[in-house]
């Protein structure tokens, strides 16, 4: 680790490029939707977007998983539904996945 603090100009240029393009995507959606006048229909689409994004993330993750992930998903949803507590749901989800993985 002799060169831990080294900053290669080429790598810094790469980082600047990556940072700029990433910020553009993070700010771009907010900016774009503000530029256009949305119809009520489009507003309704925007309204379901959060749930749709979340579901689109989850479905392949669960499909790629196995029994531990499915059992843990059931436990997580049950606890979330029952308690509404994020911390509890996360704890139960992660705990269940570890427990089931150790036996399956």
């Amino acid at each position: 680790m002799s060169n831990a603090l080294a900053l290669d100009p080429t790598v810094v240029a790469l980082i600047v490029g990556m940072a700029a393009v990433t910020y553009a995507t993070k700010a771009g959606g907010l900016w774009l939707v503000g530029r256009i006048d949305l119809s009520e229909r489009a507003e309704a689409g925007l309204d379901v977007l959060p749930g749709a994004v979340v579901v689109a993330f989850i479905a392949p993750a669960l499909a790629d998983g196995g029994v531990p992930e499915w059992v843990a998903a059931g436990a997580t949803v049950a606890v979330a539904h029952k308690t509404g507590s994020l911390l509890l749901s996360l704890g139960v989800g992660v705990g269940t996945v570890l427990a089931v993985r150790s036996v399956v």
Partner: protein
Amino acid sequence: MAEAESATERSVETDTEPDDGGMTFTFAGVREGFITGFPVAVGVAGYGVVFGVIADQAGLSVAEAALMSATVLAGAAQLIGVELWADSVPMATVVATVGIVNLRYLLMGAALRPWFRQLSPRAAYGSVFFTADENWALTIGKLRSGSKRGAFLLGSGLVLWLLWIVATVLGVTAGDFLGTPEQYGLDYVLTALFLTLAVGLWQGRESIRPWLAAAGVALVANAVLPGEWYVIVGALAGAVVRMVSYE
């Protein structure tokens, strides 16, 4: 840049749901986001360590890896970017690929619009730098349930950002000793988080068709498209189904 424009559009748009002002941008909001985001940030940090290990293998120094984590703050994009860079892929191609991997942020930013347009442009466009999948989801859940704390994204993003940088440094310097996220079940934190939020975002029958569309299209897209396109394609399918059935 956006300051003058956003002042005018505020009067033009006539919205229905969460509006009518009342959104705040306060230290209390930052604090709440920071505290709520902490356990989630610990899960994300597991991947910060992974990123640090990969960055080390790609020949990045501690300073370079930390700088990247501090300024880019996008897990999947950083991993892919560094791996391509190690394979001597040209810089422009790496940057373009990073942009594609991050396209889902466009949709996530758009979804924040109903609340964030009530904030000052500085607060809104400053906060979105700290957007990551996890704290975006936390924030949307919070705002949907009626919270007026516009600084929640910033607070939950700050704790994630801090742990992301620390974990990156740990990964570069001591990654071999720390083990994998799977060992600690950290690979499941994102799924558990999103499942919990899905429970909160569920709006009854109205959600059934858009969610089925989002899940189905995401599954197909995951099988046939590379990278994270499935998130974008699936989410858009859900929104389109809602728009088509809107009366």
